[in-house]
């Protein structure tokens, strides 16, 4: 049977892949997608704990409520972030992170 450690390792693996994507890719939309991947990986961890920590046959629903809130906040964050990206694209005509150098030097 599948143990809790395997779900947690899967969550850590997906989080690490998302982290690598954020640091390696230079297209700002792909960076944003890797951010969503990291949030989803955390959700896996929460739902696994919710199920495996079931007390008297009842799952811990607080963890699933937290997942619900995380998904909601992620949706709001994606909306605002993509609006910022669109505004940036209108100003600079580029979606490459290396071209956004206003804060440099």
């Amino acid at each position, binding site marked *: 049977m*599948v143990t809790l450690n395997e779900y947690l390792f899967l969550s850590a*693996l997906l989080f690490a892949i998302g982290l690598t994507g954020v640091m390696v890719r*230079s297209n700002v939309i792909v960076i944003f997608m890797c951010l969503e991947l990291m949030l989803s990986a955390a959700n896996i961890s929460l739902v696994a704990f919710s*199920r495996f920590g079931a007390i008297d*046959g009842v799952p811990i629903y607080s963890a699933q409520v937290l997942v619900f809130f995380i998904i909601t*906040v992620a949706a709001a964050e994606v909306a*605002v972030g993509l609006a910022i*990206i669109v505004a940036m*694209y209108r100003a600079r005509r580029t979606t490459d992170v290396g071209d956004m150098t206003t804060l440099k030097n």
Partner: protein
Amino acid sequence: MPPILFYLFATLAVLGALGVIVNRNPVSSAFSLIACFVSIAALFVGLNAYFIGTIQVLVYTGAIMVLFLFIIMLLDLRAEERRPMNFGAAFAGVLAGITFIGMAAGVLAQFPEGRKTMPELAETGASDVHALGHVIFTEFNFPLQIIAVLLVAATIGVVVLCKKELH
């Protein structure tokens, strides 16, 4: 959930995630991420979290990824042209990922509670939506109201950010 299904969906999720960071074309990355999210939703259903699994498909895949695809289409992004690879950033990124995995594996190896298997669930007539709704509206009522205000703020922010100036 039979272990074979767990390993199948876990492999699909990891392949989808790798597809996001490897693909040159942003549309291919978006579709890989959709595959990853659907596999994660399957894992949620296998963990008896039926409401969260449905919400994952509806909101994450059905709304957020569709929004991403709309924006990619709107900005008319092509595949990234071959920039000179920033070896420093690539090396740092891969190193950070591997270090994190190593640390997580080290922590999990010393987590004896993690070796147990799923406990059996009690057979109740109520679905988990019922129980989840009860918990949200009683114990987590205040955060729910704050989330509602957050959504209104996000909507207003998006409209303000995307308005064109009218002279």
